């Protein structure tokens, strides 16, 4: 437990040190620079740590979520401690993760950025494989590790190109090259986009996400999904800022990838029955929505339309903030359920709201917020993106019209699919009858250390939804960094006024609901309790209750070609069948048709070289001899 307090102390100290500066920077818009300079010969020469409004925004999210995650971990890890599992290294890596994320969003030196980035990836890997005695945890963890290193590879290449061209590692010096050489800037941007996109989880680089999130402890999934994958978005925004604008091609590229990510993510989220896997896919969806905002903002930059750019970027940044709130809330909720019921499979749960009402209501709050429904925060971010798209429709280009109207409809489709996905998640887990012994495991409410962080997040979600104007004004400074290449005064009056009306509407909605409840109470009618209506049969048939997969089956059957369904069926045989079972799993088509064949090819190709390593000492000596000969001859020739 001592490590818990040390970790807490360090994070709180970091908060005391960084939060005031970050808040000041965010409000004033002036950045603060700290340079580490240990002389010309040292590699610690001229390393800039800059807190500009964009970094400040991320710092605030990282610290808030970091502290809430720590509080939550106390309740979540308790059963593990009782079982005698050591958690010291866990807190060590947790602290490392929080601090390295702070480093990533402030460091402005390519070399050190990569080093800190790597620390972040590694510490999150170790956090992920907390339950490392299980085989699937290790497998998924290693997959995550591999993906992160592909990501780093894609980051090293453009950084190397830039630092060779400029002879410096500083981000500022990259800016000049990127601004002057458009063709190079495009290639660099795409490389960065792939590198950061793997971290963020854009489709088709998303495969690690649905594997790594379910295996990690819930507060780690929350930090990873709510905060860490956003560092990928941060990277993309930072590169965008350095290059001061993009070409038309890049803007459409980002927008299309983002729309596909959003649709793909939510589509697979609908099909999952593992609650944390579902949340992981929904993270891909939300990254897609953020990407749509960034894409719309880029289009605004390309076509020199300040309002569109402003709305796109502020929508994206707003959604980053919102997503970290409700995704953490939902992962915390999923963790609370797992802790009591010992299963992540929604199909085995049900009726939990009667046993854990607080957890249930808080989880519901998260579900409403993530579906972007008023009066919660999710609506505000998506509304700004929608508004940006609508404004962008007036840009005079047919291709633009076509892409934007599909983005518009795509966002609507994502919204309705999210509705399907989260009504399923909530009602299958918390409502109705208990479905199995796992649901019966749940006897009482979650501990305070779990309820409290969830409560704080729910209050955040509601208050941002009710008073969006404040957040909106705070976020203007980071957005200005991204749009400052535009001429024309930005008028923020219009969206601000609309947001005020939205907040009024949300308030009226709550008041009206309360009023209706009061009217119903005043009517004072008798309430009779009876079993659920079963078509005249008075005994309830609990086993006939709708399951999660039947709930989404009409929808999924409509989109059959987009899935690979893997069935495991044993039909009842003979007159007195002894055993029969049925289970269905939905497999990622990208994994099934792209990644797995690639891996197979790799295996086949590399197996051709197996003969080289035959364990025979003489053969190895022969290799050494050949190598020596080649190097001597080569040396002589040169």
């Amino acid at each position, binding site marked *: 437990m001592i490590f818990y307090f040390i970790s807490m102390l360090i994070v709180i100290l970091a908060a005391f040190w960084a939060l005031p500066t970050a808040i000041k920077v965010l409000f004033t818009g002036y950045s603060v620079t700290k340079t580490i300079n240990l002389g010309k010969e040292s590699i610690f020469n001229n390393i800039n740590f800059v807190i500009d409004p964009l970094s400040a925004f991320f710092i605030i999210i990282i610290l808030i979520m970091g502290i809430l995650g720590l509080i939550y971990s106390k309740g979540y890890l308790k059963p593990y401690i009782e079982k005698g599992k050591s958690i010291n290294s866990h807190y060590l890596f947790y602290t490392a993760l929080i601090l390295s994320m702070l480093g990533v969003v402030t460091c402005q030196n390519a070399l050190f950025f990569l080093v800190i980035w790597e620390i972040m990836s590694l510490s999150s890997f170790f956090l992920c494989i907390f339950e490392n005695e299980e085989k699937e945890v290790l497998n998924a963890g290693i997959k995550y590790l591999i993906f992160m290193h592909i990501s780093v590879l894609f980051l090293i290449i453009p950084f190397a190109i830039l630092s060779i061209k400029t002879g410096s590692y500083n981000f500022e010096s990259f800016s000049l090259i990127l601004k002057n050489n458009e063709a190079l800037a495009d290639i660099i941007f795409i490389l960065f986009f792939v590198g950061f996109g793997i971290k963020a989880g854009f489709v088709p680089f998303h495969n690690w996400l649905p594997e790594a999130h379910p295996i990690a402890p819930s507060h780690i999934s929350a930090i990873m999904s709510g905060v860490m994958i956003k560092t990928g978005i941060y990277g993309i925004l930072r590169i965008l800022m350095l290059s001061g604008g993009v070409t038309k091609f890049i803007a459409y590229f980002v927008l299309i990838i983002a729309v596909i990510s959003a649709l793909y993510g939510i589509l697979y989220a609908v099909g999952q029955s593992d609650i944390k896997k579902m949340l992981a896919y929904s993270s891909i969806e939300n990254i897609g929505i953020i990407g749509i905002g960034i894409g719309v903002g880029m289009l605004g930059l390309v076509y020199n339309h300040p309002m569109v750019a402003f709305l796109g970027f502020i929508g994206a940044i707003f959604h980053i903030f919102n997503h970290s709130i409700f995704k953490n809330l939902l992962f915390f909720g999923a963790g609370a359920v797992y802790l009591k019921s010992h299963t992540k499979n929604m199909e085995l749960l049900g009726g939990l709201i009667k046993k854990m009402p607080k957890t249930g209501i808080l989880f519901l709050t998260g579900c409403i917020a993530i579906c972007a429904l008023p009066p919660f925060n999710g*609506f505000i971010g998506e509304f700004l993106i929608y508004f940006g798209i609508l404004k962008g429709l007036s840009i005079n280009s047919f291709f633009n019209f076509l892409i934007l109207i599909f983005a518009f409809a795509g966002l609507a489709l994502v919204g309705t699919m999210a509705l399907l996905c989260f*009504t399923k998640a909530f*009602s299958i887990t918390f409502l109705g009858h208990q479905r199995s012994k796992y649901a019966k495991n749940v006897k009482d409410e979650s501990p305070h250390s779990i309820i409290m962080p969830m409560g704080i997040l729910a209050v955040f979600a509601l208050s941002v939804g009710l008073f969006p104007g404040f957040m909106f004004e705070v976020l203007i400074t980071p957005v200005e960094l991204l749009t400052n290449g535009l001429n024309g005064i930005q008028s923020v009056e219009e969206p601000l006024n609309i947001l005020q009306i939205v907040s009024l509407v949300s308030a009226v*909605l709550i008041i009206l609901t309360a009023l*209706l409840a009061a009217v119903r109470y005043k009517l004072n*009618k008798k309430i*009779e309790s*009876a079993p*659920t*209506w079963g078509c005249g049969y008075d005994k309830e048939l609990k086993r006939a209750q709708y399951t999660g997969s039947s709930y989404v089956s009409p929808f999924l059957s409509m989109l059959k070609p987009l899935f690979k369904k893997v069935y495991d069926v044993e039909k009842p045989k003979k007159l007195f069948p002894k055993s029969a079972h049925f289970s269905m799993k939905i497999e990622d088509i990208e994994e099934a048709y792209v990644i797995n064949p690639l891996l197979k090819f790799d295996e086949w190709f590399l197996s051709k070289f197996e003969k080289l390593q035959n364990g025979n000492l003489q053969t190895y000596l022969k290799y050494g001899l050949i190598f020596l000969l080649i190097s001597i001859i080569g040396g002589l020739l040169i």
Partner: protein
Amino acid sequence: MMNFLIIILNLLTVLFLPFLMIGIIKKTKAFWGGRYGASVFQPLYDFIKLIKKDFVISNTTSTIFRLTPLISFAAIIIAAVFVPLISGTAIINIPAGLIVFAYLLALGKFFNCIGAMDTGSSFEGMGTSREACFTSIVEPAFFIILGSIMALSGNYTFESLSKITTNAGSYGVLIIIFAVLALFLMVLIEGCRVPVDDPATHLELTMIHEVMILDNSGFDLALITWASGIKMLLITSLIAKIIIPTGSPLYAVYYLITVFLVSIIIGTVESSMARIRMSHIFEFIFIMSSFALIVMSLVGAKVFGG
């Protein structure tokens, strides 16, 4: 003063017209069935009767079930504020009001879904699953239609619906035809009418919306029926806004005529055809999507085709 009048008029519309609409639909069906039929005000009497009744609540349910009718009704009433009703303007007329409108309806739907699932009944699960599934196809089409029309005028309020002919010239007529057809299909789908759903049948595995409210009673049920009437009225109001020319002095009269006409057509459709098989409903809903795409390409042709 003018604003006050608009608010009063719109409120009265929302309060009474939904019942009248359902009454007219029923009367039309009675007419085609060769019956005399109940008075057109019967739905209103039913509503009052429901309020006076006691509750029977399933013992499987939780607070969510009791909360559902309240929230879904409040959401729809507030959504009505953003739609131009009998006065020709909305009470709150803001750019992108479409999105607030659509998401408030979605909030209502969200609660309807979880409220129905709360009973643990297999019928209600079935209905919910279908309802949520159909919405997911309807909504994008709705957004494409309204987004295209708004792009045409460069005005992002519902006002732009009435300016199609001025903005689109000869394309305008076609756009109006397809937009109105698509919205009419949406009334049928969202209002749960034949051929998507049959509001007259209770307790059959074929139904969608009706099955979701099997366990509601008394005041709750009253609110739910009222809310579904309002939803139908709101979409019909959008049709009225498209058809009726701008600044017409007799807007209110034309509006009422449109609403009654739509109700009569719905009644006629219900009397003249059967429900579609469940597996074919998707195809029916995709008709709306294809109309939406036609509207979009017409707008594209107008704006960028010269």
